[in-house]
């Protein structure tokens, strides 16, 4: 049974995708599976949002794509991280971390 999933903060989908692609080039389905598995289903990225993000990221030059053959011999589109994407990921993670730190400093009782 799928557990109720956490709502995702605005813009976090992009970071998640970029982070996922640091492991290996993946197709969209692979990315969705990977995020789902890693968060034990807690971070559910909607498929529509995922694909929109992938194409948006590609246009920005943060990921690049290539058609390849999947494990089960299907033709699939593989995404990989570009050097620009890697830089972007580092920057966004740092920013997010700082944001979270500030957020928790406010939320946590002293």
């Amino acid at each position: 049974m799928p557990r109720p999933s956490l709502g995702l903060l605005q813009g976090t989908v992009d970071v998640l995708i970029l982070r996922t692609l640091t492991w290996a080039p993946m197709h969209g389905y692979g990315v969705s599976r990977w995020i789902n598995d890693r968060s034990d289903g807690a971070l559910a990225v909607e498929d529509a949002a995922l694909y929109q993000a992938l194409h948006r990221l590609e246009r920005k030059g943060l990921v690049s794509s290539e058609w390849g053959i999947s494990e089960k011999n299907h033709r699939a589109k593989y995404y990989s991280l570009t050097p620009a994407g890697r830089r972007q990921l580092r920057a966004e993670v740092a920013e997010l971390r700082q944001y979270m730190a500030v957020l928790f400093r406010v939320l946590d009782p002293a």
Partner: protein
Amino acid sequence: MPRTPGSRRAFRFPWLSTRQVVADVDAELAFHLARKAEEFAAAGLSADDARREAAQRFGDLEYTRRYCRDEDVRRERESRHMTIMQELEQDIVYALRSLRSAPGFALVALLTLALGIGANTAIFSVVRGVLLRPLPFPAAEQVVRVWHANRSANEARSQVSEPDFKEWLAASRRFASLSAYWYQPGGSGADLTGIGNPERIEGVYVTPGFFETLRAPAALGRTIRPEEAVIGNDRFVVLSDGFWRRRFGADPSVIGRALTMDGVPHTVLGVMAPGFNFPADRIDYWMPLSTIPADGIGRQRSSRFLDVIGRLAPGVTPVQAHDELAAVARRTAAQEPEAKDWTDVTIAPVREAVVGEVRRPLLVLLGAVAFVLLITCANIASLLLARATARQREIAVRSALGAGRGRILRQLLTESLVLALAGGALGVALAYLGVRALGAVGAAELPRASAIRIDAVVLLYALGVSTAAGLLFGLLPALRATSQNLQAMLRAGSRGSVGAGGQRLRSTLVVAEVALAVVLVVGAGLAAKSFARLLNVDPGFQPTNVLAVKLSIPSERYPDERYPAYYEALLTRIAAVPGVQAVGAAKNFPLRGVGEIAPKVVVPGKAGGAGDRELRLPLLHVSADYFRAMGIPLRAGRVFTAADKDDTPPVWVVNEALARRYFPGESAVGKTLRVGQSSIQIVGVVGDIRQRTLTEPAEPTLYIHYLQNRRSGLSLAVRTTGDPLRYANAVRRAIWEVDRDQTITSVETMSAIVGGTVARPRLLATLLVLFGVMGLLLGALGIYGVLAFAVSQRRQEIGVRVALGATPRSVLALVVGQGMTLALAGVVVGVVGALALTRVLAAVLYEVRATDPATFVMVVAVLLGAAFVASWLPARRALRIDPVQALRYD
């Protein structure tokens, strides 16, 4: 896992079509939905349910599909754009690097291009200024010039008398406006006094319709009204913008003021717009024609002094307008004895009338510079072909690495265009200097010279010419370089071997270059020869050491009774200046007008011969010493002396042409010619001089003593010891000692007057020779380039020949022979072309035929000589080839 995606994207080519993008997005989403459905099917759902579940979980599928497509299409477009820009940048960087690596080639190409494009730009700017720029009044295409024509005397473009003009004006229905003016450079003008220094200013005397015909309103004030152009109420003047600024500092309060011109006050009515300069560039004022007294210029039918312009009525063609006025002329000719044979008119667009004479020389020059540029292009194309041979391996390697033919072609063409545009930029700088120089030289010689400048249109032309040149010389070598067989080239070993085809192409280019050079040099040779003939014309007088001073003596200051004394005092006083040998006076200097026409001179018939003949003959009023001062020889009888006074019976001196024609085989001295009621005796015959132009032989001419028929204009010829200009100030002082208010119109030398009449042929000859020399040098450079390259390519072969015992002589013969063969082929083609093309020069040549054999022979000799030198140098290099080394360096 697929093989690692990496740099492959950089090589993706060609780009994706929109249809491909759509298919990709659909396939990608289908793949995802299929995997999801498999997941659900594995969890136990039926196939249909699993598919439905997958689609439902996906979210907004259609929106996502559209979103992804849009993103991808946009990405493709952006990357395509970026790639082109990047490649262009790469190409330019690459081109610059490759030009830097061949500085010799780049320098030669750049300089020759700069010269070629510069010359083209400069000449085009002149053509544009003089021939193409609109005239300074609206709808100029409706404005025509009208001349009186006498077909039987072969005079198609004569000026018009006032009675004739008035009849035309009264009868014309096909003209919206018809008007006349009198303007004579250096002749029509007035003495301006009363404000600052007295000054001679140039003006045009117009009928009141003049400004209406041209549709030129005044910029300030107004122009002349009909009621302000009648005798008694015509002392009005309209100023030119230039004169207004120069003399009045653009002061608008000048309107309504009175200016003293020739001693009479004239009210300023208006100032014209800055660009308005009809009929010539340097006009100071316009004034009613009626201000010229009838005893100044006669108003009888024989006094043809007016230029007539008309604006055609809407829808009327020049032919219809011609027919209308020609009918009037025919009618008058039938009724008036003075207008006999003047049965026709000639009508031409006013632009042709303004620039007609210089049109052909300018177009000839434009053609000549185009030839220079073509030779330049052939030359550079030839150099590029040689370079392409040397770069075959580089190109082969690039295409082996995946660059397509189009890509390499583009890169090679970029190199050519970079070269051409750089050359063009340099050329524009040269053209700027050239136009300034031309402006200085040609200002007096070209109509509308003030309109010549380098403007946006000229710059655009230079850009277009540069681009065309770049494509012209770049395309052929680039196509050839990229069509080579890649495999063969890579196999060909370490040395780039020359393709026989490449060498053949270069030889063809050289032949073309030589042929073009022949045409150019023939043109230059003809113009130069014609100019030399012109310089060698014997004018019949001795212009050296003669100071030419022009005065005007207003009849208001010196009425008839005081005139002779003043006149004599002037001549005597100037003659007394130390170093002055003789002083003579005439109405017009030679080459500055023909004096006036005596309308009815009767040559008495001989007993038993033809009856009396009535003639129109040029008449010059001269002083006693005029012939001595001008160095015109006396052939028979006597010249005028101090004994010829205004109260003694008038006598003629005539020229040889008159004596020969009307008194053949007998002495003219002692014969009489009748004018009106008086019979006047011929007392002397003098040598013929070129009075009208340098190119026209003398016509029968009458001379009469000045005092016996006074005129207001006075040209003084002062023969001096040594350089006449050294005496200019002394002569001026002498004049002012007699009358300190006498205005002096001009002081120059007679040599300068003669020189001035050949200034335009000189300009044409100079420029054509300049372009001819450029063509010759470029042609020689072309031959040299091809041979030098051929020698370096054939090192081995020549080495073997030398090793096998070939004599230096035979090696020289081999190389020089190749060069001369090319040159000969070019010369043959060129001579044929020149015979066809130099015909356009015929109209501007003087006593030289366009097919002048001597010129052709000389040009062929010069070109073959240049070709020989250009072949000799590489041949010498071939001699120095050491067979051992040449063979070892295989």
